[in-house]
């Protein structure tokens, strides 16, 4: 069964460092998303991406965040200067048509010290 894969599974970084989280969406999907989940809390939308550009972003997705699709398979989330409150599980998701089911990856746990 096709799946969304994410790397790394866990990353520990110092405050102020840059972090790149990587995702490989399902191959025939066209819509890509990043969500985050602070421990024990709800899943929060960060950004959606279609046709090589951001289609929607939340208030959380400020200037320290950026997304990129550097090639035909990867979708990345960059956090430029990490803060303690960025510690969370980051989920990548993809959708075939932008409607209906979102397929989530297993997440990348980011710990900022």
């Amino acid at each position, binding site marked *: 069964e096709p799946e969304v894969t994410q790397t790394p599974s866990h990353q520990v970084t110092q405050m102020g460092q840059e972090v790149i989280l990587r995702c490989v969406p399902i191959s025939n999907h066209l819509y890509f998303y990043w969500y985050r989940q602070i421990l024990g809390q709800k*899943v929060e*939308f960060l950004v959606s991406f279609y046709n090589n550009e951001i289609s*929607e972003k*939340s208030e959380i997705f400020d200037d320290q965040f950026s997304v990129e699709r550097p090639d035909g398979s990867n979708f990345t989330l960059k956090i430029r200067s990490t803060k303690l409150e960025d510690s969370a599980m980051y989920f990548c998701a993809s959708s075939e048509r932008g409607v209906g089911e979102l*397929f*989530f990856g297993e997440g990348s746990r980011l710990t900022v010290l």
Partner: protein
Amino acid sequence: QQQVKQSPQSLIVQKGGIPIINCAYENTAFDYFPWYQQFPGKGPALLIAIRPDVSEKKEGRFTISFNKSAKQFSLHIMDSQPGDSATYFCAASIEGNQFYFGTGTSLTVIP
């Protein structure tokens, strides 16, 4: 503003019981209401979803009841099993736009 409100926060039932998780939404433009199941250390996985043109949808032991006038929908798990122990999230979206998730319900099914 919380677009989707979910309750209860946690739920414990005996095996065979019927846990019910409730969600309420504000935006009448929402037209897709999925429930996601999440096991520890895993990403959310779609369990079942409903659109507002039907009042109920059943898939196996999982049923969504949808009340459009009250702007509420709920998940019922029939004959619950210990393997159903997980966190359940309701969500709502307008097709093609972001999903708004509820705060999650931690379900424990006791053998």
